[in-house]
Structure formats: C-alpha cells, structure tokens
C-alpha cells in the first residue's frame, strides 16, 4: 500500500501545495503588476480610485466630439450612467444615455467628484510607444552585437584555457589556477581606473571596444566551469588519439570539444546573460553616447527621462525581460545544470 493514499498524507500534500501557490503568487506579484500597469492608459494611472486592471474610461461620440461617461449618484443611493456634456465647477450639464439629442440636465456640483465609468481595455499600443520612444531596436542591436561577440570569444578562450588546466601537467599550474580563482573574487573596481585611463589615452572611451576586448581572454569563472566539465570527460579517447599521432589541437577540436557541448552551452548562456545585464562597463565607457547604449543603460536613462510615464516604463521593463525569459524556457535544463556544477561539483 502506498502511503500516498493515506488521508492524512493527502491533506499534508494539499497544505504544501496551497501554501506554495500562495507564496509564489506573492513572489511573482510585482511581475503581474508590471504587466498590468504596462497595459493601462495614462489617465487611469493618474486617476484616484481607478480599477486595478487595465481599463479606460467609457466615452461617447456625439457629432464628432468625445464625451466621457460618468456615474451619477441618485437620491436612492444608486448610480446612473450619464454623459458628461459640459464640465463645470458649480454645476455641470449631463445627458441621458438613451436620449443623446435631448436637452442637457443641469447637475449641481463639481464634475470632478463624479466617478468615471470604466470599461476593460488593454492599451497594447503602450508597447509600441515604449518601443519607439526608447528606440528599442537600436538598444537591442547594440546589446546583441556585444553579447554575441563577447559570448563567442569568452566561450572560445575559456574552453582553451579550461582544457589546458584540466588535461596537462606543467610547472606552476597550481599557483596559476589559484590566480584564476582569485580573479573571480577580485572586486573589478581595483583594475578599473588604470584600465579606464589606458583606454582613454588610446581613444577607445566612447566605443564598445573597452567592454568587449577584455572579455576575450578567458574569464576566471568560465575557465573554472569549463575545467570542471573537461575533467568529467574520460581521458581514454584523447589518449588513444595521441597514440595515433593526432596533435593536441586536433584532439581538442575534433574529440574533446564535441563532448563538451553541454558545458559550452551553459557557459555561453551564462555569459550571454552577463552581457545582457552588464551595466557598469557600458555606463562609464559609453557615457554621453545614447546611440551606443545597451538595453540596461538605455532603460535606466529612459527611467530618468520619463519618470512620470509609469505605463511606458513598465512596458519597456517587460520588453527587456522577454528575451531572457524565452532563452531561459528553451534552454532551462542546460542552464540550471550549469549553475549547479559551478558550486557543488568542486
């Protein structure tokens, strides 16, 4: 008899499931907020007591002029939907919904106290507006160019070096590998100022070169990860190939690399996301060159310029998250395994 069938066990499972669902809903709530807000109209955001979900105030077109529909309190405490024909501070003119051509009814009171009639309405055009305002195409192109070149270079060099550390024995290997590990925990600010001054002198500040070039020499984290991967690949095949007279480069490219594809993919994905998120480098090297900004810096300066347009900021944020989401969902297995190898399989 499986213990799963015991009623107390069933209750326990249900409590865990419901609790986790509540927890994950709270955890992801800001994301829902972001998506919801990105679909609201500016009026809805600036109106107090507006509904939570994207809506727009109901309007009616009379002879080419657009009038809002409002909820007018009646004497019996209910509300009646009417057309706000003329706004006034002391009194306003209202029209019956079923008698649009009749004479306006005089209503005593400031029109601003009247609640609008809201109808569910998703402002999909916010995404287009945000996309155009921030010039997303260019940000995307800049980010992709950087991410692709850098990822390719980082994986290529990281694999070479990782293989060197995994398979060969040479004097000083232990110390050199400790240095590799040390570069991982070294705060980048220490090397930043001389590097910046150097790039400034040779006129590279204001271009992408200072951000891309240093990533092509095998970054400590990638080297470490790939070394772990190579150490897990059996040596027999390369040794047999060596006996057959194949050169190490040939062994590396045609025997070892094909076996390390999962590792290369994981490292490539990590590096790709690193580039996608990279903020500090582009911020200092591309300062004052908005046409060269990547998504991260572009988004941040967009926030500074349009801080009142909450719906556009949320739309731009959601757009910038979509590509990483898609990559994550497609490559989830490889990616998650890579994270684990980095820490546990030491």
């Amino acid at each position, binding site marked *: 008899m499986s213990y799963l069938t015991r009623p107390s066990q069933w209750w326990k499972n249900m409590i865990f499931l419901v609790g986790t669902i509540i927890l994950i809903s709270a955890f992801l709530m800001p994301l829902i907020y972001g998506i919801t807000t990105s679909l609201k109209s500016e009026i809805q955001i600036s109106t107090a007591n507006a509904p939570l979900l994207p809506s727009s105030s109901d309007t009616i077109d009379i002879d080419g002029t657009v009038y809002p529909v409002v909820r007018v309190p009646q004497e019996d405490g209910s509300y009646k939907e009417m057309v706000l024909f003329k706004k006034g501070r002391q009194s306003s003119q209202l029209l019956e919904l079923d008698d649009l051509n009749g004479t306006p009814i005089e209503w005593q009171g400031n029109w601003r106290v009247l609640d609008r009639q809201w109808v569910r309405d998703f402002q999909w055009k916010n995404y287009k507006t945000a996309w155009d305002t921030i010039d997303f195409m260019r940000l995307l192109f800049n980010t992709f160019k950087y991410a692709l070149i850098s990822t390719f270079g980082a994986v290529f060099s990281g694999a070479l070096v990782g293989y060197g550390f995994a398979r060969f*024995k040479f004097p000083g290997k232990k110390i050199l590998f400790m240095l590799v590990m040390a570069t991982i925990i070294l705060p980048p600010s220490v090397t930043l100022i001389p590097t910046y001054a150097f790039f400034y002198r040779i006129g590279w500040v204001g271009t992408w070169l200072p951000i891309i070039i240093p990533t092509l020499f095998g970054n400590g984290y990638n080297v470490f990860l790939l070394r772990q991967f190579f150490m897990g690949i059996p040596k027999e095949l390369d040794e047999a190939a060596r006996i057959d007279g194949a050169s190490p480069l040939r062994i590396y490219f045609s025997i070892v690399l094909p076996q390390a594809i999962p590792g290369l993919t994981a490292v490539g994905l990590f590096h790709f996301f690193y580039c996608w998120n990279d903020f500090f480098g582009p911020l200092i090297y591309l300062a004052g060159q908005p046409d060269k900004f990547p998504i991260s810096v572009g988004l941040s300066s967009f926030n500074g310029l349009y801080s009142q347009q909450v719906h556009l900021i949320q739309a731009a944020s959601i757009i910038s998250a979509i590509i990483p989401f898609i990559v*994550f969902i497609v490559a989830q297995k490889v990616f998650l395994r890579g994270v684990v190898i980095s*820490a546990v399989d030491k």
Partner: protein
Amino acid sequence: MTFATAPFLEGLMKNKTKAVYDKYNIKWGYFFISIWVIGFILWYLIPMIASLVFTTLDFNLATPDKNQFVGLQNWGRIFLDPEVLPSIYKVFSFAMISLPITFLFSFLVSVLMNTKNLMGRSVFRALFYLPTMVPLVAVVLIWQGVLNNQAGWINLFLENVLHIKAIGADGIRWLNDPKIIYFTYTLFGLWGIGNSMLIFIAGLQNVPAQLYEAATVDGAGPFRQMVHITVPIITPIIFYNLTIALIGLLQYFLVPYVLNNGSGAPEGKTNFLMVYFYRQSFNYFNMGYGATLAWMIFLIAFVLTLMLFWSSKKWVYYGGSDK
C-alpha cells in the same frame, strides 16, 4: 586499464612524491592557457600595479598637466573624508539586514522545493528562478512601481485589505523613508535568489537519505533533523553562497544608481562605498583618489574573505573528504 595508459599511470604515481613533467605536457599546457596568461597580465597584473601607483598621485583625467605625486596623501584623505567611513558603515548596515533575510528566504524556499510532499516541484522551481532572469535595471523599475506610495499594489493591499495605514505622507514610504530603505532594497534582492536557491537545492539533494532514516528511527522530528543533519552537511554550500553574497554586497551599485542617480537619497542612506567610488572617479574624475578607494574596497573584501575562510575551519563540515 589498457596498455597505452600505463605510462600515464606511472607518471601519476611518481607525482605523489615529486612532480615530474614531460616536454609534451609543458609545451601544450602552456600553449592552451597562454591566452589567459596574456589576459591576466594585461587586465589584472599591470592594472593592479598601476592602480597602486595611482594611489600616490593626484591624477585627474580632465586636467592631465596638473597631475603630481602626493605620496600617501590619498590614503590620509580616506580617513579625513567625512563620506568614506560612513559609506562603509552603510554598506555593512545594509548587509546586516539584507544578508540574513535573503539567505533565510532562499534557504527556506530551497527546503520547500526539496520536500517530497510538494507536487509539481519542477514547475515551482522554474517559477522561483524566473525573476532572476529579469535584467536588474528592469527589476528595480518594476519594484519601484509596485512599491509606489500612492498607486503601488503593495500599499493598496495593505491599506484596503489589511487596513494598515500605508498610503499618503504618513503611510509607508518604501522608497523615501530612511528607516526602511535597506529593507526595501532587500526586497529587490529577493528576486535574485535563483542561483543561490539552485545551489542550495543541489546541496540538499546530496544529503544521504540514510541519515534521515536513522534519525526518524531515533525519534527526531523534522525540526531537529534540519538543525542536526541538514544544516551541518550543507555548511560548504552555505559558505560558498555567503562568500559570493558578501563580495557582491561590497560592490552594491546598480540599485541606488538607477533609483536616485547615486544621490544617496533618502538622507544619504544609500551613499554606499561603491556609489561614492563612482562619484569620485567618474563624476569628478579624481582618479588618484578613486584608485585609493578601489584599493580600500579590495582590502576590505580581502580581509573579509580571509576571515570567512579562516572561520570556515570551525563551522564548515567537509564530510569524509581529505580536506
């Protein structure tokens, strides 16, 4: 073992007493790692030495002709500068709030994700990981909206559902109240638990099941099993996550920069060390002083890491390994 591998084995045996290298290994080993060695010299070794030299200069990129040697003045300035020591204090105050909360949350979620009672664990795992994929700038912008004093969902929920006074000037001003700003930043950080969570989960899965079985037989409940079995066995993982988190916190920069342009708002509370370093180096272009600040960040990180490694001998358990 095939005949062909015998010489390699012999080499391994000898290696135990004294390292023996053959020409093939030396030549190709250096060949494969050469690109890293070049990169290390270019982007680490030379800049670090240069950075040390910079700490003795009054060096401003905007006025190159006025650069001059000032000896240890930059180091002296650090102690006189009214912004530096408070900025270190702020980083640590923030860390004292953020680290325990983030750590505990990440650990508890991992335990939950590792519970046999939970159905659909892989789906939940992916969902908890999901926000880690959101670019950090977008994380800040989304949270900035959801924590808005007037229209943010969190305050709306507190006010209308739980009936706590949250909206308005005397309500909860998540982003402007200096008393809770570190807590607010900690909330942003919860969206980045993905990696530490995965590492925790992997560690939890490696705890031998017999230990739990034995403990159950001995009558230990889930809580005692957690304290006496799970936690001790995963101390190496805790240690790894702690080191990474501490070094990351010392360089905490993006969130305050995106939220307030590094102004330190509210009331200078977010004027962290790295924010101040950025301002000196890249707003005022005081590169000599900036390099000194950078070295100080490095020294603090170095001392902290050493302390962690040293203390790890006392509390980190390496089960049965030769470490």
